[in-house]
């Protein structure tokens, strides 16, 4: 199936195509390998990045724990340095949390962690503020008011009458109970001490009315009010402080840690997934590379086989053909190969080789034929030339005997016989010379009107014809032919000569020249009314020195000359019997240029 499309392309294209395909697949493998390594590199970077982010998350979690620890130190010990460290850790964390992590889920978790971290730190700032206020209230203002109240009570104790001093002592005791409960509340954070402190405040306040020094009692009532107000504010600050620490900060810390853990898990999962993807990707790409390489190998093998077959098959055929051609065969098959490539050139060379072989074979045949003809010719010539010589030598011997016998007169009388034999030999030699000239000398062709040629011919022979009482009938409408005019005329002269010798033995002989044409040929017929030519002699008469009747005058070379002329014109001459007896000579002239061969 592959061979057909492959053979539609030239050898060069096939080879180039093969190299291009191989190169393309090799490039694909290279690209695939490059892509694999590029992806592998990117995946590795991603894994490293995810791992780094996961590590960052761990660091973040550790920082968060550290920040909480510092915050607790501040909350419980009130160390401002711890508060500042919380701020420093917060700034580090907030700087790292906002980094892009390349994953929407991770960024979302980081953003949430950042939000909660901010809320945590805002709450811590509020805690610091509340703690400061609370510290001021509990450690300064309450003490100031307590001291002032105690001073006032002590002053009242000194100023009041003795029986009221006990009430003063009770009031002082009640006031000390206020302080005691207040500080127990701040220490234990038990709400019942607030109520107890409030009760003692009311108790103290209710005792003020029994004292006589209005100014002192008014001052003490005012201090008591301030103390109560400060205490209640300190309680609320404490509660707010506790709420911020235990509820707001705790929840924000938990959510921050939760989101950080989630972030770490996302990054860790992403890293693991990336690792799995890398493994899977490398595995799949290796398989793909293996498969592609295998396919490339198969392709190269298949394509090489196709290319080799597409080259060797015609080459083998051509080799066989050339071998046969080299052996001289003209019948070797030329394998069909329509393309214009190197094999096409070889095929065409083989075809040329074959044509040459055919030509050579024909030449050989012709040569053999010529050799045969030459042998026959030599034989015939030597035989026929020998005959007058033998005759002459015979008469010369007779003459010599007659001369020896002194019969000079009889000997002289025999000289005529010798002369006649020599004249015949001379005629034979002339005719042979003429035969040899045909094709070698004066074979220029040109178109000429056969009507005019034969009309001139008839006029030139009119006297002889009249004398011989022979009619030469030339039918009108003869063609214009392309030939050597004198040689053509020679043919008709020979035909007419033969007709006069063989068809006019009883006088009233006749030779009718007519013509017919078809697409390729002009057909000229020369029909006589003689006795005709037996069929067995119809070919022989065209041989050298062949005469139907040896008693007839002539050398037997005329028709051989006619055939040679016709052959040189690319035409033919043969003889048939006429429909009413007699012989009909057929001459065919090609309508196109025959390409007359000049014979050396």
């Amino acid at each position: 199936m592959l061979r057909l499309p492959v053979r539609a392309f030239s050898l060069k294209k096939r080879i180039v195509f093969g190299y291009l395909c191989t190169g393309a697949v090799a490039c694909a493998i290279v690209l695939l390998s490059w892509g694999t390594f590029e992806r592998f590199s990117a995946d590795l970077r991603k894994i490293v990045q995810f791992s780094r982010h996961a590590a960052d998350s761990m660091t973040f979690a550790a920082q968060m724990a550290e920040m909480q620890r510092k915050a607790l130190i501040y909350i419980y010990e009130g160390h401002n340095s711890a508060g500042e460290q919380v701020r420093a850790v917060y700034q580090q964390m907030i700087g790292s949390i906002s980094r892009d992590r390349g994953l929407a889920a991770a960024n979302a978790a980081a953003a949430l962690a950042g939000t909660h971290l901010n809320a945590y730190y805002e709450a811590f700032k509020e805690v610091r503020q509340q703690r400061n206020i609370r510290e001021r209230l509990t450690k300064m203002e309450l003490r100031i008011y307590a001291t002032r109240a105690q001073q006032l009570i002590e002053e009242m104790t000194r100023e009041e009458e003795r029986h009221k001093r006990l009430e003063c002592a009770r009031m002082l005791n009640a006031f000390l109970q206020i302080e005691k409960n207040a500080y127990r509340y701040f220490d234990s954070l038990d709400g019942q001490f607030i109520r107890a402190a409030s009760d003692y405040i009311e108790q103290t306040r209710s005792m003020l009315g029994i004292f006589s020094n209005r100014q002192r009692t008014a001052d003490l009532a005012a201090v008591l009010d301030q103390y109560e107000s400060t205490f209640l504010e300190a309680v609320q600050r404490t509660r707010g402080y506790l709420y911020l620490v235990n509820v707001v900060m705790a929840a924000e810390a938990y959510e921050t840690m939760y989101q950080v853990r989630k972030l770490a898990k996302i990054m860790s999962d992403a890293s693991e997934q990336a690792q799995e993807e890398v493994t899977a990707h490398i595995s799949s790409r290796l398989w793909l590379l293996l498969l592609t390489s295998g396919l490339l190998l198969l392709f190269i093998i298949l394509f090489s086989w196709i290319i080799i077959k597409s080259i060797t098959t015609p080459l083998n055929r051509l080799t066989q053909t050339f071998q046969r051609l080299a052996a001289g065969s003209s019948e070797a098959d030329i394998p069909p190969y329509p393309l214009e490539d190197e094999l096409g050139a070889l095929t065409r060379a083989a075809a040329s080789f074959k044509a040459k072989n055919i030509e050579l074979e024909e030449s050989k045949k012709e040569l053999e034929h010529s050799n045969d003809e030459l042998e026959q010719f030599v034989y015939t010539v030597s035989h026929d030339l020998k005959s007058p010589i033998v005759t002459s030598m015979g008469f010369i011997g007779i003459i010599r005997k007659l001369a020896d016998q002194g019969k000079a007169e009889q000997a002289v009388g025999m000289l005529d016989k010798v002369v006649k034999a020599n004249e015949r030999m001379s005629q034979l030699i002339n005719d042979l010379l003429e035969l040899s000239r045909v094709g070698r000398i004066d074979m220029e062709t040109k178109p000429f009107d056969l009507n005019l040629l034969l009309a001139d011919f008839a006029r030139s022979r009119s006297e002889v014809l009249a004398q011989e009482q022979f009619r030469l009938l030339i039918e009108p409408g003869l063609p214009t032919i392309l030939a050597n005019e004198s040689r053509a005329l020679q043919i008709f002269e020979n035909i007419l000569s033969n007709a006069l010798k063989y068809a006019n033995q009883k006088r009233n002989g006749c030779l009718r020249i007519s013509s017919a044409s078809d697409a390729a040929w002009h057909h000229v017929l020369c029909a006589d009314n003689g006795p005709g030519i037996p069929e067995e002699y119809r070919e022989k008469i065209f041989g050298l020195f062949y005469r139907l009747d040896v008693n007839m005058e002539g050398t037997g070379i005329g028709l051989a000359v006619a055939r040679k002329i016709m052959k040189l014109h690319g035409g033919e001459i043969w003889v048939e019997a006429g429909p009413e007896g007699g012989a009909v000579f057929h001459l065919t002239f090609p309508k196109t240029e025959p390409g007359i061969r000049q014979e050396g």
Partner: protein
Amino acid sequence: MNRRTFLQQSGKLGAAAVAAAVLPNFAAGHHTTKPTIKVVGTHVTLLEPLRQQAEQDLGIRIEFHPGGDAAVLLKAATDPTSFDLYEQWSNSIKVLWQAKTIQPIDIGRLTYWPEVNSLSKLGRISAHARPGLGDVPNKILYVQPDGGLGPKPSRQISFLPYVHNVDSFGYNSAVVPKGIPYKSESWAWLLDERWHGRVAIVNSPEIGVFDLALAVQAKGLMQFKDMGNMSRSEVDQLFDIVISMKRKGHFRGVWTSVPHSVELMASGETVIQSMFSPGVSTLKGMGIPCIYAAPKEGYRAWHGVMCLSRDCTGARQEAAYAFMNWWLSGWPGAFIARQGYYISNPERSRPFMSKAEWDYWYEGQPAAEPLQGTDGRISIQPGEVRTGGSYIKRFENVAVWNTVMDTYEYILTKWNEFVLT
């Protein structure tokens, strides 16, 4: 206009006319300058449409200062000059009253006081209602002769009763099998092993502690002598249980805001958790089938309180009283009902609501038509029924009221441990 809409419209007009008649308009009166009052509270009630409407109706300037629960409470408890009116939950009353940053409200100056229902005045919506534990509103409503707060009626109250509701837990019915309200739905579900790692609690100790307590008690893990006022040992026992469970990973954590609670359930990190009504509505709007449970053990209820600052006097005090009266004048109650909250004198708001709204929000009947929320968007589709039924039925099933207990500070420290475990 058909008869129904005519009655509805005429009812609204009549109610509005009455309200307009009783509410002073400071701009039209003898006041030369508009007084400005500062209202500190939470985002639940400090809503811009309410502020604008009140300004328009009363002719005063009103500044809303919303903030987080703890922040605003601390502000109100420590600085009475920072507010004129304070809006929050009844569990903050003890703190504020103890801090003496708020002053008693004179019932005689409250136009709609007679209409305030028995839930606020007596602590029960009906005679059949189960007595709720903790700070039932009436126990902290009246100013007693000794200056303390108690249920005995007097002419002065510590807060204006207005917005209130019941809370429970919400669950994603795509994961948690749907239960039957008041029958199978139970606080114990919060501790169900099936939802291990997907449970969250609201990060507010005075609220969340009751969710945990109700869950632990419903699960049969412990009993409280008085859940509304736990002893230290009870607190220890409760937190031992829940901290142990948290250590095992039962709880996803705590949520710090309504959007946070929505985010947790929407992301699938939780399937069951403490919830507030707006969170449930938001999740439903997001296509998450969140059901607000009606636990058979009863709800955790809360009552909104509006308190008058100790430092609010003169024209500002007059304006503050006007604002308090405006809140009970009908329109605000109807407005807040569309957010799922109830008002203490519901009948005053009824003319400002369509029948379908009233039936859905107060009567617990299926919505007859699409109902809009406070943002104007459809929040309730026809056929929907409010979980827990009618207003009466919901408040007949109150297990405990949000309370700041005596062990509040101790609970805070235990809460810290619970959160960070």
